[in-house]
């Protein structure tokens, strides 16, 4: 009697667990679909000719519509390789500076007790709330005065400034959770404060560095605004700006636009793959670390 009742209850709760899990997976799968669809569409249509794109935008490239003309245009016309390497130089350098300076600032804020520590922290983090584009005019004037217009350095500096607030914020919060003992131990072992940072702290914050890297990288890579204003010269164009040459006032070479966008996705994917293992650890480290 009781046995059947309890087994019945067990089955009911198993079913409930199963349906909850199925629901969660359905929501996640739906979200994934929505997120991937535009990217899929871009890549799909980059392999079609103009007619194929317009007659059947959702169709797979087939006979009569399959064409590599977009890629051919991109690789032959214009200086796509230059744009590409510009984008890479700007993104990687800015990223490096953001991580390096951000981690050092965060270490100072989290580790040392000094006057105006909190105030300085708030000042560094203020940038999160104020979009850097509000300062575009001032930045442009500054760059003109410094003779930095149409240089990659201008972009690198602006992106570093743009990425630092979030980096400092996330890294400071994480560094506060690092054990004080381990740094003290390094001090007793005779390490200088710089070596403590590089040899003890940096290995411990690697997952969070990866997280910050991914968050900072994407807006830099995708940015159109600052390249357009600060570095629109042909030698300093970035990929997003370079794509614009296929968008004319009267005609748009869609195959070429989509092909160049597809190529532009690749490095982001590559960097993401590089960081992703650390990224997951970074996102969950606060939650599940014992």
């Amino acid at each position, binding site marked *: 009697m009781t046995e059947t009742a309890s087994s019945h209850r067990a089955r009911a709760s198993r079913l409930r667990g199963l349906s909850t899990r199925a629901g969660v997976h359905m929501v996640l799968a739906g979200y994934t679909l929505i997120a991937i669809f535009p990217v899929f569409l871009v890549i799909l249509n980059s392999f079609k000719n103009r007619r194929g794109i317009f007659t059947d935008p959702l169709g797979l490239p087939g006979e009569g519509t399959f064409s590599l003309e977009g890629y051919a245009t991109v690789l032959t016309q214009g200086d796509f390789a230059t744009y590409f390497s510009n984008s890479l130089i700007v993104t990687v350098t800015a990223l490096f500076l953001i991580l390096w300076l951000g981690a050092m600032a965060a270490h100072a804020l989290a580790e040392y007790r000094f006057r105006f520590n909190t105030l300085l922290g708030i000042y560094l983090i203020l940038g999160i709330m104020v979009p850097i584009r509000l300062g575009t005019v001032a930045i442009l004037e500054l760059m003109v005065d410094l003779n930095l217009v149409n240089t990659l350095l201008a972009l690198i500096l602006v992106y570093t400034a743009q990425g630092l607030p979030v980096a400092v914020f996330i890294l400071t919060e994480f560094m506060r959770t690092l054990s004080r*003992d381990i740094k*003290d131990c390094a*001090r*007793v*072992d005779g390490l200088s404060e710089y*070596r403590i940072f590089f040899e003890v702290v940096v*290995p*411990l914050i690697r997952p969070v560095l990866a997280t910050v890297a991914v968050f900072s990288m994407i807006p830099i890579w995708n940015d159109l605004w600052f390249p357009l204003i600060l570095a629109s010269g042909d030698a300093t164009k970035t990929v997003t700006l370079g794509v614009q040459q296929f968008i004319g006032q009267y005609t748009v070479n869609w195959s070429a636009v989509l092909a160049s966008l597809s190529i532009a996705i690749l490095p982001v994917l590559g960097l993401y793959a590089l960081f992703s293992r650390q990224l997951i650890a970074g996102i969950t480290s606060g939650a599940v670390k014992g």
Partner: protein
Amino acid sequence: MSELTLQDVRKSYGEAKVIHGVDLAVKDGEFVVFVGPSGCGKSTLLRMIAGLESITGGDVVIGGEQVNDIAPADRGIAMVFQSYALYPHKDVYGNMAFALRHAGEDKAVIDERVRKAADILGLQDLLKRRPKELSGGQRQRVAIGRAIVRDPEIFLFDEPLSNLDAALRVQMRVEILRLHQRLKTTMVYVTHDQVEAMTLADRIVVLRDGRIEQVGTPLELYHHPENRFVAGFIGSPKMNFLSAERSGDGTTVTTHGSAPIEVPVQPRDTEGAVTLGIRPEHVGLVAPGAGDLDARILVAERLGGETFLHFDLGDEGDFVVKADGAATHESGETVGLSFPPQALHLFDAQGAAFAPRDRNALIG
């Protein structure tokens, strides 16, 4: 030469004073334990000895040399931390060799010293493991090994056992004692656990609110606490305190309507109320009316080997008597409590103890 001397050492953070002038001399090879409730400044004091906290006033002298402004690494100390503080990205060998490698020591010397320390602590088979693959006890052993490798003049331990479970703590306690016997190095050990303090120390330093309350061997502190705080802190379960009234020459007291009790202490002029102290293990249980006081048992806790009887004595809160494990007393029963005069302590209103008449008269 590895004596440690603290001369009027002070520490304050801005206006807040944390250490109020500590004087202490630790002899070469001595095992000294700092004990006190949390927030008493014991860890801060240890960190000042290590050089991890700056010194606001006074001197720290190690081996005859004033080290106030010397970096931690150059003080000839090694420290073991509560959270082990192992470098997670290095294996056990790397952790133990780290300080020596950094100091530019010869590879062969490093290897020899690491292997020797690993031998002492039984870590030979774990040298290639990462800290996260070790159990708590093994991690603490690596932390100690890392300290041994540096061959310091003074070992500093900051609550090294408080992250371990009870069984492991007892085991590691014995290991630390054996380590001290073997190395014969000066050791300073911080803990909030008075059992650890009693079992490990040659001498115990009891701290409260940044001041030394008493320094002495474990048994000195147990038998002759200089004040009520030390009396209550050392010993488990803690000493019972009863408010008392003085009569006669001041060493005869009555408490809770008892007959006058003669306490064998030196008479002293003092104002205000006094407090009578007696340890749970020294109270005798007799028939009602035959002892100094009669009281009703509130709860009897039976641990097998011993029984703790809790009494309610009005304003004094819990009064505990440690009885034999075979005691048959039940809750609700009224028994007589007898206080052997030699086991009694008397404290004035400020908490300072009256000196015993005969310091050597210990209770067996």
